[in-house]
């Protein structure tokens, strides 16, 4: 078998040595220069060097030694070519498709929240996390699925670990999805609260999508690109019209909502969008958001390269000790939970074992798609971190701290934030809000608004003009909202199918996806599950994001740990024990992080339990504890915190159960004297090609 890494020419050696030296120098500047602000270009250059070196050396090592990808072996796409799902496809096309599927709002939100600790901790975790954990997970799961007819993560877990672990993991995926939908919807709520301009443009996406859907259905069937262009023009027009709404004394109040009403609207929207026919609303939005997402990422990259901003956030802030206003918790383990997507994201294992392995024409192309695709996503995360860190730190903390800490006026916020050590004046905060066409920027946690202000400032630096900054801000908000709402629609629909599947076990007719009873019932259950957490986050006086985001991070990293444990078990099953550390070390790291974070959320000063007990004690003593304004609000804080604590406990049990199953399978495989992995038999590419 071809396991040796090909030898390199002297010129190649010199080139790679040069890249390594440049990378080390840039990283040195990023990590060691103190006292004076550095330019974002250093960070970009350091990231790019780390990525190409990781791709060329570690990625290649995994390809040749651990997975032993064989370009002469026929892939599922070749063997089962049906012209629809299994199609051998050009590698660049597969790469583009894979990247479009894995890149979402996650890598844009996590790094923005983590910027409270400074840009350095987040940068280092993204760079080294992706090379040694995230990209390893995506690539290995893709490689394993390629050898198993393109089977899904759940099926592979069932085959390699047993039926029970398969069911346990799939249950975890369902719960994770509900948390994902709730936290993403909350990001939209936080961005649109009391923002008539934003709410108007996001509301416009519904009629625009209906129009596009009808156009595609009756007028020009299947012309996706054409209709998306029309949609884009209409969207940009709606942003421009949004300013008129914001300026108008009669129209603005019609689109001015508080968080609670917005949450209810999103819940209602999620329900209707997922029972309507897909061609009418969901599909056209999906097309728009897919293209807009790629376009916006390209725009962000262009803005950073052209504007080359200076990073105003310190490299490391004092909040690594766990006292930060954005989210509580020390650097370890909470940095590694907060930045999930971008460094390592469990959700990718579902995509790497979904459509992608059914498209690859050759095993030799798996590294580029699996490992390379994840590196691209890490680069998106780095750009988000740059956008957040190039803001004035005072503005950053004003936008991301809960109102319980900084109050509701620019005066109280400026005082509170200056006391944290980041001097800012009320005028600066008011002026920023005015520049972007909003009444207030205070307590808009959730990443999207911060990123939007950062992006708006960068783009405004390149294309100055009156009120352009407000336009770019609302463009960025619209992009994230459009993207997230599409995820909410599609996720509710998938969740509905999963619930119908489970309900069908008890009462067969409920499983029929065409029956209106089963359909509506499952949709109501699904919407209530994520809607509960969304509503809880929207009315949470402490902000909501800082409770929900850690839950999301824990769940996402839990899934990544499960995927890496599968890769570890299969490596041993293939009797390649000496490479067990490749997936094994990141798996152990993620298990340690999720369990530690989970434990701190269950017991201790920053735990859900402690918060619940504090308010329960207050109620018992007949005292009203701020920020609650009534006994009913206190009761709600108590209940919500207990629910969150129970969920954390559930995630920890899931991880522990999967650790147990994996260890059992690992020991059996280690003792066996022959390979025991369930690989499909070898078929030579030459025998089927042509």
């Amino acid at each position, binding site marked *: 078998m071809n396991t040796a890494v090909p030898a390199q020419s002297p010129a190649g050696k010199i080139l790679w040595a040069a890249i390594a030296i440049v990378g080390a120098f840039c990283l040195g500047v990023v990590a060691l220069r103190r006292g004076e602000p550095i330019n974002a270009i250093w960070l970009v250059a350091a990231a790019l060097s780390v990525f190409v070196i990781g791709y060329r050396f570690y990625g290649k090592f995994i390809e040749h030694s651990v997975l032993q990808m064989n370009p002469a072996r026929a892939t599922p796409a070749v063997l089962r070519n049906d012209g629809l799902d299994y199609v051998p496809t050009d590698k660049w*096309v597969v790469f*583009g498709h894979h990247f479009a599927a894995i890149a979402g709002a996650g890598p844009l939100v996590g790094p923005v929240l983590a910027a409270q600790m400074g840009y350095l901790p987040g940068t280092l975790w993204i760079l080294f996390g992706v090379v040694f954990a995230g990209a390893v997970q995506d690539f290995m799961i893709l490689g394993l699925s390629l050898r198993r007819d393109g089977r899904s993560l759940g099926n592979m877990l069932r085959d390699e670990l047993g039926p029970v672990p398969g069911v346990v993991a799939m249950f975890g995926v369902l719960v994770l999805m509900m948390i994902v939908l709730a936290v993403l919807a909350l990001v939209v709520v936080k961005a649109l609260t009391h923002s008539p301009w934003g709410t108007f443009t996001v509301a416009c996406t519904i009629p625009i999508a209906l129009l596009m859907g009808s156009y595609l259905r009756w007028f020009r069937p299947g012309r*996706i690109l054409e209709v998306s262009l029309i949609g884009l023009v209409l969207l940009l027009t709606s942003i421009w019209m949004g300013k008129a709404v914001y300026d108008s004394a009669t129209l603005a109040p019609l689109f001015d909502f508080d968080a609670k009403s917005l949450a209810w609207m999103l819940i209602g929207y999620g329900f209707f969008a997922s029972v309507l026919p897909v061609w009418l609303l969901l599909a056209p939005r999906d*097309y728009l958001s897919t293209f807009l997402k790629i376009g916006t990422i390209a725009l962000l990259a262009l803005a950073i390269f052209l504007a080359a901003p200076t990073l105003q956030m310190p490299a490391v802030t004092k909040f690594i000790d766990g006292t930060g206003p954005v989210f509580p918790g020390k650097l370890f383990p909470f940095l590694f939970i907060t930045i999930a997507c971008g460094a390592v994201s469990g959700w990718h294992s579902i995509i790497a074992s*979904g459509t992608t392995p059914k498209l690859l024409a050759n095993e030799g192309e798996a590294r580029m798609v699996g490992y390379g695709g994840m590196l691209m996503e890490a680069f998106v995360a780095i750009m988000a971190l740059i956008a957040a860190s190039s803001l004035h730190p005072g503005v950053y903390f004003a936008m991301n701290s809960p109102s319980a800490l900084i109050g509701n006026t620019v005066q109280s916020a400026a005082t509170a934030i200056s006391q944290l050590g980041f001097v800012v004046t009320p005028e600066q905060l008011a002026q920023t809000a005015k520049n972007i066409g909003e009444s207030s920027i205070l307590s808009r946690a959730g990443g999207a608004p911060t990123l939007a202000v950062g992006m708006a400032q960068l783009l405004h630096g390149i294309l100055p003009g009156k009120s352009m900054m407000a336009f770019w801000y609302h463009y960025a908000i619209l992009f994230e909202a459009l993207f997230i709402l599409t995820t909410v629609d599609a996720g509710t629909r998938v969740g509905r199918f999963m619930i119908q599947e489970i309900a069908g076990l008890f009462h067969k007719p409920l499983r029929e996806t065409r029956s209106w009873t089963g359909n509506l019932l499952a949709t109501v259950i699904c919407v209530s599950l994520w809607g509960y957490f969304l509503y809880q986050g929207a009315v949470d006086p402490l902000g909501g994001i800082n409770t929900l985001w850690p839950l999301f991070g824990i769940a*996402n990293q839990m899934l990544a740990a499960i995927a890496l444990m599968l890769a570890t078990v299969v490596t041993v099953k293939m009797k390649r024990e000496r490479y067990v550390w490749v997936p094994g070390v990141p798996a152990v790291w993620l298990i340690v992080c999720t369990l530690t974070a989970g434990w701190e959320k269950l017991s201790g000063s920053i735990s859900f339990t402690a918060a619940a007990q504090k308010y329960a004690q207050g109620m018992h003593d007949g005292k009203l504890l701020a920020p609650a304004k009534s006994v009913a609000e206190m009761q709600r804080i108590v209940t919500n915190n207990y629910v969150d604590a129970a969920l954390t406990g559930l995630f920890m049990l899931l991880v522990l159960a999967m650790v147990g199953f994996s260890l059992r399978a690992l020991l059996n495989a280690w003792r066996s004297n022959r390979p025991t992995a369930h690989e499909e038999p070898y078929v030579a590419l030459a025998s089927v090609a042509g």
Partner: protein
Amino acid sequence: MQTFRQDLLHSLRHGLQTGWQRAVQTARLSCGVPDYDLYVRHLREHHPERTVPSYKEFFRERQLARYKGTGGRCC
């Protein structure tokens, strides 16, 4: 010299055409719609007994299929 320039122009045009086709294919695939021409060729070669769907029918079937399974999109 003349032929060299013609060759260069020709390969440039060819490269741009392939690039554009790939971009369109990627964009469609990212929305869950695979290559229609490839599918038709596959049907003709391997299943001559089946009727070839029109692009409209093909598109509708794929649109429905995209939102049935799990995954397909990330957070």
